[in-house]
């Protein structure tokens, strides 16, 4: 049976910030700080969302600017700016959403079995999202959010 967000006894903001920092530092040689609730500005043009089910069920998303996507893709793949295409930016958004979602859910409950769907590119912050957070990286802004089934 899936659990709802209100039954999760953790500070989701802190947990998410820790996961984002861990992922950015380990795989992308960057970092992030939380700057507040997501205002869903239009400049966050690269994004991906995925669904998960199992002990937790819901949706997770990550949105970022093309500049952040390019910087992170360049850092992990060792590519110059000229070598990075919009497709690479989109692939970066999908993989980032995948790794962040896995990290957040693993830390919510290290023993919970959760299955993730394949990330899909999105063009804007999803509406009716249960929770989201705005973070600043040295390369620009990043927004992550999640909804757990039964929260609305």
């Amino acid at each position, binding site marked *: 049976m899936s659990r709802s967000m209100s039954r999760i006894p953790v500070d989701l903001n802190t947990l998410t910030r820790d996961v984002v920092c861990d992922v950015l530092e380990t*795989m992308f040689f960057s970092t992030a700080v939380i700057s507040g609730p997501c205002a869903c500005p239009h400049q966050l043009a690269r994004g991906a969302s995925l669904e998960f089910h199992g002990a937790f069920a819901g949706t997770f998303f990550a949105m970022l600017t093309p500049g952040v996507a390019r910087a992170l893709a360049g850092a992990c793949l060792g590519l110059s700016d000229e070598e990075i295409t919009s497709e690479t930016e989109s692939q970066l958004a999908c*993989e980032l959403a995948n790794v962040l979602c*896995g990290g957040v859910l*693993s830390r919510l409950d290290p*023993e919970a079995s959760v299955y*993730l769907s*394949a990330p899909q590119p999105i063009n804007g912050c999803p509406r009716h999202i249960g929770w989201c957070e705005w973070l600043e990286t040295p390369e620009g802004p990043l927004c992550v959010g999640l909804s757990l089934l039964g929260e609305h």
Partner: protein
Amino acid sequence: MSLSVLIVDDSPLMRNLIRRIVTLAGTELVQCHEASDGQRALEQLARVPVDLILTDINMPGMDGEQLLRELNRRGVTTPAIVISTDATHSRMQRMLAMGAAGYVCKPFSPEAMRAELDRVLTQTKTGEPA
């Protein structure tokens, strides 16, 4: 010494990243083959034998768990390292019990990936159990 590796992941970016880590960090001459899911991995393996398989778990079509099961069924003894966002102890134990020689959790550093790769290859050479 040369090394032939099959990278199985539905994300082109992850395949590129893993290929980069595998080819840049080692001293061996590495030949990388790629597949976007388990079924394509089996087709690749039927054509080209490899020394090591690096596979994601969550993939559309045949996933990494089904791939390991099928490799076991076919008697393929090539060591496989599972790479996944799933850091739960139960999933790791299940994959290792199914015959995975190693497990790398995302996010991983290039050093961590390379260390697991070296560990598994050394283990394979010396004939130690996984």
